[in-house]
């Protein structure tokens, strides 16, 4: 078993055994969407336009709980620190953890989609929706993994994570909301591919740059 695969198996095992972060991410995301659906006008168009922003804001806020829980397992008993001091590459830790975080957030996003459709009355098509969900969660999981590591030593990490991470992912959130709106309401001006490409660039940049910075955060 390669080192990278072993680290992915480790994170997946812990994710599947301790579902607290997963469930709380889903619950917080659903609550934020519910609150957004109850605020403002209840006309179908207004609800539909709020839906995309509420979905991604809910998923972002939920992701902070999920990511904190994911790093808690590394922090509490010092597992990651011990393996790094024994010679494991911090970069391997980043990519395995970011990949499993992506998987977890993607599943949370899939579970939130029918709730979003029920609350806001509209939703993107399945194929395009999955693509945007994948690109959006890729763009959240990489900086989320890095920032969780940065704030992990602080007692206030649950508070610091969304505060520190939000400014960095604002461009991602704006882009992914635009992509979702275009997919939901139609793309009369042919802008969707530009927004989707921008989202893909954000994802790529985060996975490259955050991976390079991770060793400085944990070592």
């Amino acid at each position, binding site marked *: 078993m390669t080192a990278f695969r*072993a680290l992915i198996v*480790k994170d997946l095992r*812990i994710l599947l*055994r301790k579902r607290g972060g997963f469930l709380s991410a889903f619950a917080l995301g659903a609550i934020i969407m519910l609150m957004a659906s109850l605020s403002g006008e209840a006309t179908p168009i207004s609800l539909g336009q709020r839906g995309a922003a509420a979905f991604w804001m809910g998923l972002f806020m939920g992701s902070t709980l999920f990511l904190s829980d994911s790093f808690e397992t590394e922090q509490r008993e010092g597992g990651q620190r011990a393996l790094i001091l*024994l*010679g494991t590459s911090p970069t391997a830790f980043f990519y395995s953890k970011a990949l499993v975080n992506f998987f977890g957030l993607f599943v949370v996003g899939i579970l939130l989609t029918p709730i979003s459709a029920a609350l806001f009355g509209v939703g993107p098509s399945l194929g395009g929706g999955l693509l945007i969900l994948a690109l959006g969660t890729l763009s959240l999981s990489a900086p989320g993994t890095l920032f969780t590591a940065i704030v992990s030593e602080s007692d206030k990490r649950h508070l610091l994570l969304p505060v520190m991470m939000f400014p960095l992912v604002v461009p991602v959130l704006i882009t992914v909301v635009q992509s979702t709106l275009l997919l939901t309401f139609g793309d009369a001006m042919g802008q969707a591919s530009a927004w989707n490409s921008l989202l893909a660039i954000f994802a790529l940049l985060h996975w490259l740059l955050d991976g390079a910075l991770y060793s400085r955060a944990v070592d």
Partner: protein
Amino acid sequence: MVTESSKRGGPFVFVENLSKKFGAEWALARASFTLERGQLALLTGNNGSGKTTLLRCLSTALVPDFGRATVLGIDIVSGREAVRGLVASLNQPPGFYGGLTAHENLTLANAVLNLGRDADAIDAVLRRVGLGSKQNTPLDSFSSGMKQRFALARLALLQRDLILLDEPETHLDAAGLRLLQEFIAEWKARGAAIVCATHADDRFHGLGDLEVVLVGGRPTHHAHAGVPA
């Protein structure tokens, strides 16, 4: 006789004026000693005397502010990655994943550190530390003593050249302490060098080759066994 030291041109572990400051306080000041293969250095001193800081510097977890240390001639700062491949530590907390079983934790270490041990070797080492029947139990449900035994099992599996022990006697019962003494004797016989911070140096009677007594971060004396300080 051509010793390893003479071939390398220096001792296995070389610590010279190693110092570490936290804020304005020197947690460790001018610690110096040398250690050869097969030797055990005991670090003793009260709480806050700098024992753990010294071990953390040697494990490359901390960068010293003054002085230097080498392992097999490799500087612990400039050659950090190489030193990490030679060193294994038992810290508090020991460093593992509580959500994984004992066997899964060792399988993970085996894979990520490319140790090349098979499942039988992992079973054997867990049986050796008395965790054979608990190897499929998550470490979260282990007692503190069982976790310490697990940490010993991992050290035994790693087979590193320099072993750093931070109060390894903590939480161990009488049988666990005998196991620890057996491991130390075996590691010494294998040629590993060991640095052990302890409050119970009498537990290692007859095993220690060198004692470094730290007071307020400063070594007051160090003596080789049988040699007056």
